[in-house]
């Protein structure tokens, strides 16, 4: 929740407990308008009234005033709703992915991890596939058809050639829809040594609100640069040390929610609730009459 006038919101937050406690503490003080009775102990035992109506009355008074202040502070709430997101997995198939520092090899471990990613991805998440080495290859446009994705994994070329991360990112971005939650999961092991500069590609991603998540396998020398890229697009960077870790990291990305956020003005509801509570308290006080 955000407020247009935070000072008023802080005041409202203070008024609620202070008003409630104040009323509870002053309840035992002398009151000129009080009904005089000869034996309060007998009255207490005879009426045997529960304490909660008085507490509710005091709370209603305090909450009414506090909510009026909160309403004047211009409250806005952020509402998140699950949205149908699109993700393109951008897999590095350069020659270095043949390295076996991760068993059985970086490329095989990445493919296995992507398969598990597909299996645990939530329904409604559309997944596309791009591979890149010296150039980018669009294997599958984002789709919700899991079988098609698994089949596309079979078409991933064998690791060979240079590393054109920028090309891969641009090809992935081109496959994503123009609106809605979108992300690219970059699985790579190295630094860009061919094609478009990744910085330019990342700037484009940031401009079009596409999130870049990067998973670096093996001892990539430019991982810090990739971390910076992910930060620019509010993405997630991870560097798993083993095949199992890689699988876990990519599964975490699959489970990350893609929510659409929207802010909603709450001034009117706050004011309505405040007036309702105030009216209830006023009616309660007005009903305290001699019959």
């Amino acid at each position: 929740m955000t407020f247009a006038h935070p000072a008023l919101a802080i005041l409202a937050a203070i008024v609620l407990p202070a008003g409630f406690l104040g009323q509870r503490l002053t309840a035992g003080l002398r009151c000129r308008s009080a009904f005089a009775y000869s034996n309060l102990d007998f009255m207490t035992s005879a009426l045997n009234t529960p304490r909660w109506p008085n507490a509710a009355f005091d709370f209603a008074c305090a909450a009414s005033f506090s909510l009026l202040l909160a309403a004047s502070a211009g409250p806005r709430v952020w509402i998140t709703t699950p949205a149908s997101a699109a993700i393109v997995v951008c897999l590095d198939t350069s020659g270095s992915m043949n390295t076996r520092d991760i068993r059985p090899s970086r490329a095989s471990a990445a493919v296995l991890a992507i398969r598990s990613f597909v299996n645990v991805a939530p329904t409604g998440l559309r997944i596309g596939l791009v591979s890149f080495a010296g150039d980018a290859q669009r294997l599958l446009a984002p789709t919700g058809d899991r079988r098609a994705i698994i089949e596309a994994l079979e078409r991933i070329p064998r690791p060979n050639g240079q590393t054109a991360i920028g090309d891969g990112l641009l090809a992935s971005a081109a496959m994503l829809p123009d609106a809605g939650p979108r992300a690219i999961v970059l699985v790579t092991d190295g630094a860009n040594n061919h094609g478009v500069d990744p910085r330019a590609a990342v700037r484009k991603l940031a401009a079009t609100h596409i999130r870049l998540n990067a998973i670096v396998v093996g001892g990539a020398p430019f991982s810090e640069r990739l971390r910076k890229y992910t930060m620019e697009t509010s993405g997630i960077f991870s560097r798993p040390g083993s095949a199992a870790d890689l699988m876990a990291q990519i599964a975490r990305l699959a489970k990350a929610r893609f929510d659409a956020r929207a802010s909603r003005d709450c001034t009117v509801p706050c004011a309505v609730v405040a007036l309702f509570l105030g009216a209830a308290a006023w009616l309660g006080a007005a009903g305290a009459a001699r019959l």
Partner: protein
Amino acid sequence: MTCVRRAVLRTRSLPKERVCGGSREYDPGNEARVIDWPASARRGSIQIRERDRHATLAWAAVVDTSPSMKAGRDRSLGEAAREAGEFWRECAAPGDRWLGVDPGGLLGGLDRALHRLPGHSARLVISDFCDLPEVPDALLRAVARGLDSTALVARDPWRKAFPLAGFVTIADLETGAVRKFFIGASERLRFERLAGERERSVLTRLTKAGWRAATFDENDGGRAVLRAFRAA
């Protein structure tokens, strides 16, 4: 008033020497039961007891003046209590003694009634008896063992119709303590029922301790005294 005095004189605990206030010659038409046989034997002629006319009594009224007696609808219970006290005073014959007691609360008033008043005095205690639970039975019985002890118990002014509803603040007249209540229909009914029960329990306790007891309300001072004697 005369009947109140007679009733006091007929009290079983009146000392013998106080009863024999005097005697006179028999007149035709006098009842045989009032013949004073010992005096007749002494004087050699039939004598009639004149105890109602000549016995001197001590009258004492302990009127509760605590703040709780300020309760009332149209006027306070304290005003009715003062009326009852005045009525009690008027019951005294010209030769009788009048003893006022500054009560200082029910417990203090009973204590003074026991220790400062002569044992043969006719005592009237007028109070709301809110503090009765604090008064030990032994003290109640000790006061009642004197000549004559009458209690007028103030009735709760709202015993028949509790006047409040909703969220109300009620203050104790004695202590000034304040409490907030939510009073609905069921609470009002409960209060009215328990107020009646409390009144009955006070009367029962006083009667069991040997008191002549009756109730009074804010519109009913002197008549309550008569009612107490009539009931007894």
